[in-house]
């Protein structure tokens, strides 16, 4: 009965607010999200080109791809369409570290190991035959939620990683990639989840930054006079996580182009809550527009039902308007949501 009363109240409140929302300039149905993306992008080169990094070549593919790319540059050749690279320059250039303990104890080694370089190209729609490119770097200065500092992670992985059978005398010694057995994989997954949960219950800081530039290669020919830089972007992200409860986030973003005024943004937000209630609050200041204030409360009800209440400001000429949204979301596929 109590749940039914709550549901009816939420529905009535939601209906009224939805009517109100329809009179605002922007009545999209999506719940309020952060206006500013507080995470420094993993692949700044893709962000500066407004590309999705889903086709990024990672891991082992990065090295041969990078070598091919360097060969093309060196030969002054024509770039292939849609090259997408995302790799760590320290390891690619032959950097090594002795062990996990060395990673934990040496700040600069850790900094190098977590630096990410990205490079991407795509066709220039406005300049047929030419190509847009983006390059970017991402640095992690501090991450107090790095799970590699957890003392359980490594030994637990070792325990489940060990083969159940021993080697054969005179057998082939060529390394091959194998799928771990179901129980080993499940056990390692459980270790990662347990360690991640434990680490996220601790308070701590995270500081990262990124830089990217994009440009155009006219006629896709790599010569000094055919390459023109068009845009620079920078990010600095800072966050402090209060253990079980809230995370305070701050981010400064700058976007500079040669034919437009700089677009600088700074924001501060709070994200967090409990297993039943989530809260997001944010203020964003922008050099080219009015500040935006907003936030939402998301309450998990029962049976996959959520109630979401949203408030945010929108510019209406010289004044502010307040956008109010209230909605119910039901996901029958996730009753415990």
């Amino acid at each position: 009965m109590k749940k039914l009363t709550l549901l009816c109240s939420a529905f009535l409140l939601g209906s009224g607010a939805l009517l109100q929302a329809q009179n605002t300039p922007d009545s999209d149905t999506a719940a309020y999200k952060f206006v500013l993306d507080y995470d420094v992008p993993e692949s700044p080169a893709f962000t500066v080109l407004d590309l999705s990094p889903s086709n990024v070549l990672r891991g082992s593919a990065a090295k041969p791809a990078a070598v091919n790319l360097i060969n093309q540059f060196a030969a002054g050749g024509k770039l292939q369409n849609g090259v997408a690279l995302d790799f760590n320059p320290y390891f690619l250039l032959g950097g090594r570290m002795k062990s996990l303990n060395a990673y934990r104890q040496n700040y600069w080694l850790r900094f190098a190991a977590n630096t990410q370089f990205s490079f991407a190209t795509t066709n220039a729609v406005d300049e047929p035959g030419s190509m847009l490119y983006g390059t970017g770097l991402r640095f992690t200065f501090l991450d107090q939620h790095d799970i590699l500092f957890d003392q359980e992670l490594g030994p637990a992985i070792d325990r489940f990683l060990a083969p159940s059978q021993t080697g054969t005398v005179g057998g082939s010694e060529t390394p091959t990639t194998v799928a771990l057995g179901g129980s080993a994989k499940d056990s390692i997954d459980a270790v990662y989840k347990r360690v991640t949960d434990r680490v996220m219950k601790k308070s701590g800081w995270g500081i990262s930054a990124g830089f990217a530039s994009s440009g155009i290669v006219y006629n896709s020919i790599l010569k000094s006079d055919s390459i023109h830089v068009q845009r620079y972007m920078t990010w600095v992200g800072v966050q402090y996580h209060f253990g079980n409860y809230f995370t305070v986030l701050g981010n400064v973003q700058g976007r500079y182009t040669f034919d437009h005024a700089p677009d600088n943004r700074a924001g501060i937000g709070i994200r967090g809550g409990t297993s039943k209630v989530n809260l997001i609050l944010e203020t964003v200041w922008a050099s080219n527009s009015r500040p935006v204030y907003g936030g939402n409360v998301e309450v998990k009800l029962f049976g996959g039902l959520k109630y979401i209440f949203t408030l945010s400001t929108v510019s209406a000429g010289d004044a502010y308007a307040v956008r109010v949204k209230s909605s119910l979301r039901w996901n029958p596929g996730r009753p415990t949501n």
Partner: protein
Amino acid sequence: MNQRYCILNPNGGPITIRISANNALRASGNFSIQTKSLDNWQVTEQWQQAAGDTGSSDHTVQTAPAALEGKAFAGLINCCALLANADMGAVEIQVLQNGVSLPLTKPMHWNLIGVPNCNSGNAQQFNTSLIFLTHQP
């Protein structure tokens, strides 16, 4: 197939197996001492050993050096990358006696690339083995 041999002193100290891995790779193996019986190798001693957080670990073989003549050491090793950016590195196994590395007719050293991340459910696997020979200095 080139069989690998290791020459040890039957009157020396116990044999130690050392496994090392760099770049924070996890290398965890199932190792054994095996004795040839007719045409088959039979496991007489078996253990699990991993390079660990320090990148290196030692295990002392229980079988006495003098009894290792003609016996084999074999291992099956799984490796995965703990650092998302470090999917390459080296794994090495050394055989030591009295703290000194024993000569091998072929090194037990692997340069690995494309090692799967530990949370991927995959691993890079390789086998290794050698046969002990004794030589009294």
